C-alpha cells in the first residue's frame, strides 16, 4: 500500500512540473504553413526553406520587401566586362562560431553547392555559370562566366554562405542536428524538429544591428484552420497565409491586424499547342474531334483571355486578395511593361473572335487544374468554366491533387491547364524565358513551357535581352519581349496572389512580395 502511495506521489509531483510556456516579452512564436525539409541551405531549393534559413545564413546579396537587391555580405558589385563580375565583401562580419568572414568562405561555399548528395533540387543552377573564381584580397572576389550572365548577382542571392571549415566537411545531417548550422545571420540555430518546429535565438553580435527578439519559435501548422486558431488563442503572435475565409473575421477584430502585399506569384493558363492538328480534351460540341488545334490560332487565345472576368474572380473568389494580371509579375517589378493591362471582360467580343476563327458555335473542352496547390485553385477553375459558357464555350472542370496533376500536365496530357508561377529572382526576364520561350530544356529555354507555345520573334527578343549587361537597356528589351508574348497570348494571366499575414495586437509585419515570413520583419508596436 505504501508503495502505491509513493508511486502516486511521484506521479503527482511530475504532473505539477511548471509549464515552460510562460511568454516572455522578447519571445515570439510564428505559425508557418509549409514544412521545412532541411537546415542545410544547399540541399533543397524550396521557398519555405530559403525563407526560414535566411535568419541563420546570409547570401552576398539580399532582397528587400519588394525583392529589390540590397547589399548583404557583399557591400557592392559590378560587371567589369561582359564575362567578369567583381564583388566587394563586407568587413568585420563574424560567423556564429566567432570566425571572421572572408572571401575564402565564399569560395568554399560555392564549391560545396554542386556536391551535396541526394539533393532533390540543387542550388548548382545558381553557381554553374561561374567558370573561374579569383580571390583578389580577403574582401574582393572576382567571378568569370563562360557566357554573359546578367543575373549573376540575383542568382548568388539564393546561395547562403557557410564558414570554410563547415563548407568543406559538413553533411546535411550535421545541419539538422545544429552542429553545422553556423552562418552570419541575425539569429542562431537552437533546434529543428522536422514537421514540428524550428527554434532560434538572437545573434547579439549581428553586423546589421540588434533584433527586437531574443528567441523565435517557428511552428509548422499546415492546416489553415489550426493556424488561425493558434493566432486567436495567443499560442503564436503571427501566422502566414491567412485563409481567405477568415480574412473578414480577423480584419474586424481589434485584437489582430492583417498585413498584405501583392506577391510574385501569378496564376495563369497554359494552352496545349504541342500538336497542330489535335489537342487533348478539346472537341466540337457534339463530341467529334476538331479539324485542327484551335489554340494555335491567336484569335482563339485572345477570345479565351477576354472571356474571363478577372475582377469578379479577384473580388468574390479571392475575397480581394488577388490583383488581376496582365503579365508574369505586378508592374512595379524589374522588366515589367506598364503598357500591358489586364484584358477587359468582354464575352460578346470573345464570341465574335471565335466566329472569325471559324468557331461560330464555340467548342467543348475540359479545364484541368490542381486542387491543393494555389489559393482557391479549384474554385478559380470552376469560375473560368462559368465565364466560358457565356462566350459559347462548353467547359467542364476536372481538378486533382498536385502530385497527380503536375506529372500529367508536364506530359502534355491536358488541353487547358490552370497553373501558377512565382518569380523568386524578382525580375521578369528569366520567368518569360522559362514559361514562354520555345521548349528546349538543354539550352534552358522554355523549361516549364507546358503549353509549348512557340514564337521565334519572342525567343530572339528574350535571348538578346538576357545577355545585355546594361541594366536600363536590358529592362527595355525585357519589356518589349513581354509585350510581344502577352499580345500574342502565349499564356493567359489570371491574377497575382496577394499574401496575407495575421499578427496579434502589439505586433506589426512588413509584408513582402516573395511570400517569405521573416522574424526580422516583425516589429513590436505600441
Amino acid at each position, binding site marked *: 500500500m505504501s508503495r502505491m502511495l509513493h508511486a502516486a506521489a511521484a*506521479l503527482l509531483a*511530475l*504532473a505539477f*512540473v*511548471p*509549464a*515552460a*510556456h510562460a511568454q516572455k516579452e522578447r519571445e515570439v512564436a510564428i505559425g508557418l504553413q509549409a*514544412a521545412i*525539409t*532541411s537546415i*542545410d541551405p544547399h*540541399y*533543397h*531549393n*524550396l521557398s519555405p526553406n530559403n525563407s526560414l534559413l535566411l535568419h541563420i545564413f546570409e547570401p552576398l546579396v539580399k532582397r528587400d520587401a519588394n525583392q529589390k537587391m540590397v547589399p548583404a555580405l557583399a557591400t557592392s558589385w559590378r560587371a567589369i566586362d561582359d564575362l567578369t563580375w567583381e564583388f566587394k565583401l563586407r568587413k568585420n562580419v563574424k560567423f556564429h562560431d566567432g570566425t571572421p568572414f572572408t572571401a575564402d568562405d565564399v569560395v568554399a561555399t560555392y564549391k560545396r553547392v554542386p556536391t551535396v*548528395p*541526394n*539533393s*532533390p*533540387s*540543387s542550388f*548548382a*543552377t545558381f553557381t554553374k555559370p561561374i567558370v573561374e573564381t579569383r580571390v583578389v584580397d580577403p574582401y574582393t572576389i572576382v567571378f568569370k562566366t563562360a557566357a554573359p550572365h546578367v543575373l549573376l548577382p540575383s542568382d548568388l542571392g539564393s546561395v547562403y554562405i557557410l564558414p570554410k571549415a563547415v563548407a568543406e566537411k559538413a553533411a*546535411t545531417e550535421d545541419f*539538422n542536428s545544429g552542429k553545422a548550422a553556423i552562418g552570419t545571420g541575425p539569429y542562431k540555430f537552437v533546434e529543428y*524538429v*522536422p*514537421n*514540428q*518546429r524550428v527554434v532560434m535565438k538572437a545573434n547579439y553580435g549581428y553586423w546589421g544591428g540588434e533584433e527586437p527578439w531574443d528567441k523565435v519559435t517557428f*511552428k*509548422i*501548422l*499546415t*492546416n489553415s*484552420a*489550426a493556424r488561425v*486558431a*493558434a493566432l*486567436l*488563442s*495567443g*499560442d503564436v503572435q503571427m501566422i502566414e497565409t491567412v485563409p481567405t475565409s477568415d480574412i473578414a473575421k480577423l480584419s474586424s477584430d481589434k485584437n489582430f491586424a492583417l498585413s498584405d502585399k501583392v506577391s510574385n506569384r501569378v496564376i495563369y493558363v497554359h494552352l496545349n499547342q504541342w500538336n497542330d492538328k489535335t489537342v487533348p480534351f478539346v472537341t466540337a460540341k457534339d463530341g467529334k474531334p476538331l479539324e485542327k488545334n484551335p489554340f494555335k490560332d491567336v484569335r482563339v487565345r485572345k477570345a479565351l483571355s477576354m472571356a474571363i472576368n478577372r475582377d469578379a474572380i479577384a473580388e468574390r473568389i479571392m475575397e480581394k486578395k488577388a490583383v488581376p494580371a496582365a503579365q508574369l509579375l505586378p508592374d512595379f517589378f524589374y522588366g515589367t511593361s506598364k503598357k500591358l493591362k489586364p484584358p477587359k471582360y468582354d464575352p460578346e467580343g470573345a464570341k465574335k473572335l471565335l466566329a472569325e476563327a471559324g468557331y461560330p458555335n464555340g467548342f467543348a473542352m475540359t479545364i484541368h487544374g490542381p486542387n*491543393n496547390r494555389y489559393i482557391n485553385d479549384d474554385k478559380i477553375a470552376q469560375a473560368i468554366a462559368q465565364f466560358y459558357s457565356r462566350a459559347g464555350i462548353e467547359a467542364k472542370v476536372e481538378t486533382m491533387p*498536385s*502530385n*497527380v*496533376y*503536375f*506529372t500529367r500536365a*508536364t506530359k502534355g496530357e491536358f488541353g487547358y491547364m490552370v497553373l501558377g508561377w512565382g518569380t523568386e529572382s524578382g525580375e521578369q526576364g*528569366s520567368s518569360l524565358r*522559362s514559361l514562354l520561350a520555345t521548349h528546349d*530544356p*538543354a*539550352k*534552358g529555354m522554355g*523549361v*516549364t513551357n507546358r503549353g509549348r507555345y512557340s514564337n521565334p520573334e519572342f525567343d530572339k527578343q528574350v535571348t538578346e535581352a538576357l545577355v545585355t549587361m546594361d541594366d536600363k537597356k536590358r529592362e527595355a528589351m525585357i519589356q518589349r519581349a513581354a509585350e510581344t508574348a502577352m499580345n500574342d497570348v502565349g499564356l493567359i494571366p489570371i491574377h497575382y496572389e496577394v499574401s496575407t499575414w495575421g499578427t496579434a495586437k502589439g505586433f506589426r509585419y512588413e509584408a513582402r512580395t516573395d511570400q517569405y515570413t521573416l522574424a526580422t520583419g516583425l516589429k513590436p508596436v505600441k
Partner: protein
Amino acid sequence: MLAFAIRRLGQSLFVLVVMSFLVFLGVYAIGNPIELLVNPQADAVERARATAALGLDRPMLEQYGVFLSKAAHGDLGRSFVFNVPAIQLILQKLPATLELAFAAMVIAIAIGIPLGLAAGLRPNSYIGRTIMAGSILGFSLPSFWVGLVLIMVFSVQLGWLPPNGRGETVLLLGVPVSFLTWDGLRHLAMPALNLALFKLSLLVRLTRASTREAVLQDYVKFARAKGLSPRRVIGVHVLKNIMIPIVTVIGLELGSVIAFAIITESIFAWPGSGKLLIDSINQLDRPVIVAYLLVIVTIFIAINFVVDVLYSVLDPRVRLGAAAAH
C-alpha cells in the same frame, strides 16, 4: 502456441512483401516525384541529375528490386524530401502517435464500457436513453468539426488548453512521452478526446447490445437465483462473457487509430506519423510511404496476435493451435 506463432510470422512476411509491391506500384502510378521536388526553373541537366540522384531513372521493377535487397538488410531507403533514413523519420514520430492512440483508447474504454453497461442493464430508463442519444452524436459529428469546436471553446474562448502541438516530454524507458508532465497532459487532452469520441460511441453501443443479450442468458438467471450480489453477477458473469467481441473491436480500432489519426493530428498539429504519411503522399516521398505502411502493417499483425492470445485467456474453450488449424 509456438507453432501458431511461427505460422503467423510466415504469413506476415508474405503480407509485407505483397503490400510493399502494391504501394510501390501505386506511388509509381500517381506521378513523378521530380515534378514536385525540383525547382521549376531548373534546366534539363539539373532534372536529369536529380532523377538519377534519387534512383528514379531506372525501370520500376529494378527500383523495386533494389528496394527489396536493401530492405532485406534492414535499410528501407532515405526520404526524397528530408534526405534522412525513412525509418528514422517514422520512429521519431511514432511515439507521439502511439501515445495519442493509447490515450484515446483509454478514454474510450474507461468511459464507453461503463456507459454501455449502464445502458444495457436499464435500456428503457432515462439514463439509458440519454446515453444512446449521446452515442449517436458521437458517431455522426465529423471529427474535424468537433476538433475545431474544441479548440474554439477551450483555447480561444476559455483559454484553458493550448490549441496545438505536443507538450513537454520526459523519457520513459528511453521513449519520449508527454503524459507524465502537466504541460504534456494539457496538450494531450483535446486531441485524445477528439480521437476517442467515435470509438467511445462504438464501444457504448457494442457493450449495450452484448449486455442486453447476456442478461437474458440462463447462466445469469442462475447466478441471480443462486443469490449472488448484483455486483458479482455483472462484474463476473456478464462482463466476462461480453468481453470477446469487445476485445476484438478494441484491437481492430486500436490499429486504425494508430494508422489513421491523420485528421486529428493535422487539426491539432500533433507531431505524429499520420501527418507524416499525408505529407509524404502529397510529395510522393515514396521511401517514407512504403516504410510507414510496412511499420503500420507490422503493428496490425502484432495487435491481432495479442487479441488472439487474449481470446484464449478470456474463453477457456479457445485453443490457439486449434484456431490456427482452421
